[in-house]
């Protein structure tokens, strides 16, 4: 008898249906797998054999053929184990009366018959649902991840015998209960702007950066709280919408880094170490193309501490994703596109010893050393960082101003308002934030008064700024004006924007 079971394979962030066919014939006992399975799939032979035996089921001592269709797709990973086991049971007539049609089976088997979790479950469920499948049996350990998917019957099972009991109707598994998405429900970090001492200038820059989706660079001596500030970035960013959360969860699920809560409810904050390779940063791999740090930071923050210490080639690889918001990785097995719309936040010391520009400590670096240190960051990359701000090493315990003790929630409120203005402005276009504006949008939305324009022209001449720097300054000025709820960009907005261009000044 032939049995046909539906399973799913992953291709990038998309699920691809795979039919697992089992045929159990009379003949010399043998066990063959056809249909382009890779090693991990072939090894499932032994796992399935032991799992069946240890679950009190019979492994058919006949001539067994397992076929994976479509035959031209390379099948990878261990997620097919459960489907293979169920197809064998069905074909050897151990599941009499069970209805397995249109159920998608996902899960890896342990030798004991337990079902282990699989990576990339959520993207598979989403794809399968769009293909018309509504019934799923998934590993119980993946249940949290599936809880947010409405419109489907999902049965979490922790062992093969539970699956059999459910299928034959002896011990039905209760379907998974739907959970409501609440952004930031699982607040894990303790980062909050109220714990940041002083740093009034950097605080403000952080607010502008988040409000307009600008990238930022913090320069300052060691131990001034650059990392602390960066960790606050996700806390002031707008809350995730359900769609965004699903998209981010998909990426994290494919990469296998999803936490226990099953859905990413907070904006990601990724801090790859400066020894990171280009592949770990951008994504890649031999057979399975894994998303890299920039994709894991999608919708959140990619924080590069000590920017000049990163390998030059790795940093240069970031340039294209910074522009496009996604990355396409091409390998022999095919090319995959992962989203990578992240906010880049970087930090660096002003010079190798860290004291350059400090009033109270002496810098011991020679000008050549400082130049060499700064030259590690290429102009094109620096060009994509709109806000460059100095973090100083002075604490202002005696400052009474309320600005330096605000908490993240207060800042987030203003950010949300600025984002709302931008949403209205870019309605119907592919642009979300001010930072993404091109030359056309700048001309349309960043109108200066004639007086303001003249002041600007003079200023730019005096400061010997490039045309590109000018566009960056105007974009930041637009965001500052949005935070000020001002329709027009005033000279003061421009002046403030200019103060965040540390590396343009000659």
């Amino acid at each position, binding site marked *: 008898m032939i049995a046909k079971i539906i399973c799913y394979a992953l291709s990038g962030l998309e699920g691809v249906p795979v039919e697992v066919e089992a045929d159990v014939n009379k003949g010399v006992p043998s066990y063959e797998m056809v249909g382009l399975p890779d090693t991990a799939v072939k090894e499932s032979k032994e796992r399935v054999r032991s799992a069946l035996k240890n679950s009190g089921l019979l492994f058919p001592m006949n001539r067994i053929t397992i076929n994976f269709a479509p035959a031209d797709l390379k099948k990878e990973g261990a997620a097919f184990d459960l489907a293979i086991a169920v197809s064998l049971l069905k074909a050897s007539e151990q599941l009499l009366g069970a209805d397995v049609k249109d159920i998608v089976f996902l899960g890896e088997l342990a030798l004991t018959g337990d079902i282990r979790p699989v990576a990339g479950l959520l993207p598979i469920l989403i794809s399968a649902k769009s293909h018309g499948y509504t019934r799923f049996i998934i590993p119980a350990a993946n249940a949290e991840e599936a809880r947010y998917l409405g419109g489907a019957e999902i049965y979490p099972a922790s062992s093969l015998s539970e699956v059999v009991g459910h299928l034959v109707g002896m011990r039905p598994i209760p379907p998974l209960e739907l959970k409501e998405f609440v952004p930031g429900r699982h607040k894990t970090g303790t980062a909050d702007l109220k714990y940041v001492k002083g740093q009034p200038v950097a605080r403000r820059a952080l607010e502008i950066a988040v409000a307009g989706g600008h990238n930022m660079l913090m320069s300052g001596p060691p131990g001034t709280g650059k990392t602390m500030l960066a960790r606050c970035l996700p806390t002031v960013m707008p809350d995730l919408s359900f769609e965004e959360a699903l998209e981010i969860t998909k990426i994290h699920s494919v990469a296998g880094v999803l936490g226990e809560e099953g859905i990413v409810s907070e904006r990601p904050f990724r801090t790859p170490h400066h020894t990171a390779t280009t592949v770990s940063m951008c994504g890649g791999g031999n057979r399975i193309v894994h998303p890299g740090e920039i994709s894991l930071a999608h919708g959140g923050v990619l924080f590069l501490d000590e920017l000049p210490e990163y390998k030059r080639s790795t940093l240069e690889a970031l340039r294209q994703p910074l522009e496009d918001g996604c990355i396409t990785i091409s390998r022999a097995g095919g090319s995959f596109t992962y989203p990578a719309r992240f906010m880049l936040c970087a930090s660096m010391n002003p010079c190798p010893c860290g004291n350059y520009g400090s009033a109270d400590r002496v810098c011991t670096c*020679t000008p*050549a050393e400082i130049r060499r240190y700064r030259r590690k960051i290429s102009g094109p990359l620096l060009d994509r960082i709109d806000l460059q701000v100095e973090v*100083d090493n002075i604490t202002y315990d005696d400052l009474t101003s309320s600005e330096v003790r605000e908490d993240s929630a207060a800042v987030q409120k203003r950010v949300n308002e600025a984002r709302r203005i931008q949403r209205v402005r870019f309605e119907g276009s592919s642009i979300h934030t001010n930072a993404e504006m091109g030359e056309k949008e700048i001309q349309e939305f960043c109108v200066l008064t004639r007086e303001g324009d003249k002041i600007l022209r003079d*200023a730019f001449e005096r400061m010997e700024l490039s045309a590109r720097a000018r566009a960056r300054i105007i974009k930041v000025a637009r965001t500052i004006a949005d935070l000020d709820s001002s329709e027009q960009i005033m000279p*003061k907005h421009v002046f*403030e924007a200019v*103060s965040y261009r540390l590396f343009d000044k000659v």
Partner: protein
Amino acid sequence: MNYTPEEKTVIYAAAVKGMNNRAGLAAVRGGDAVRHLDGEEEKEVSAYTAMLEKRGIFIVTFLSDDYPESLRNASDPPLILYGAGRRELLKRRKLCIVGSRITPPWAEKFGKTLSAELSEHFTIVTGLAEGGDAAAIAGALAGGNLISVLPCGIDVCYPAAHTALKEKILEKGLILSEYPLGTGTAKFSFHARNRLLAGLSEGVLVLSAGVRSGALITAGRALDYGRDVFALPYNAGVSQGAGCNALIKAGAYLVTEAADILSVYGIVSKEKEEPEAEGEEGRILQYLREQGEVHVAALAEALGMRIFEASAALSALELKGLAVKSGGNKYSAL
């Protein structure tokens, strides 16, 4: 380019025989070296000058008409100077501006402004290094009244990062060196170059100098030659200005504006219109002038402004050239 017979003998002694030193100078001064060159020697000199000319380089000899008088009066002038650029600058009045490679931002900005103003009356003489030299160059380059003296051959650029800057100086000003083409830098050549800076100029302005800065050597040579020494004042305890303060203590002119220097030479500086700050900006400028270097948050606190408003206003003042940002988000008035 035509060289007179005397010039040719000096070129022969200094460039071909390699006697661009005290011995050669003594020989020329005593008249021993000034003699008729025979055909073979003459040919060698012509070949050498032709090679230089092809590369746009000329030689000024001790016996040339336009050999700077001030340098000739120094105790140890070079026999020949290689030059590229505007030769006529040699005859103008010259003033030297130097500073340490590590110069605080306000001193760089201030030095640039001073250099621009002074270059209307003087040709500015300086080196090619970062910091003080770069500030002097930046100020004088627009007008082109600028001589940059190198501690290496004219075709060598040290520091290499200033290659583009050197090209600009070649275009608008003059570059001098006493070393033949291809000579690299050596420890002693910086000291030797500093003597040229002092020797060429009527006075030396020191923008910044630590206690062991090379700028102090230039100032010392200027004193040896009987030239004037000027220095910017610094706060007590600022290491980058300790040398400047020491110079002032020893009797150098204290400089807070270009007129301080010009008046020493009897030049009346033109009244120039200052872009003045009004309103909020005026208040800030006033405060900066009273307080010296102030952190933006402290300033906002003292004047009762929002911090980002203060940043914007300070940025405006900076663009108008009335204030300058130093490290750590601190500002000071100019």
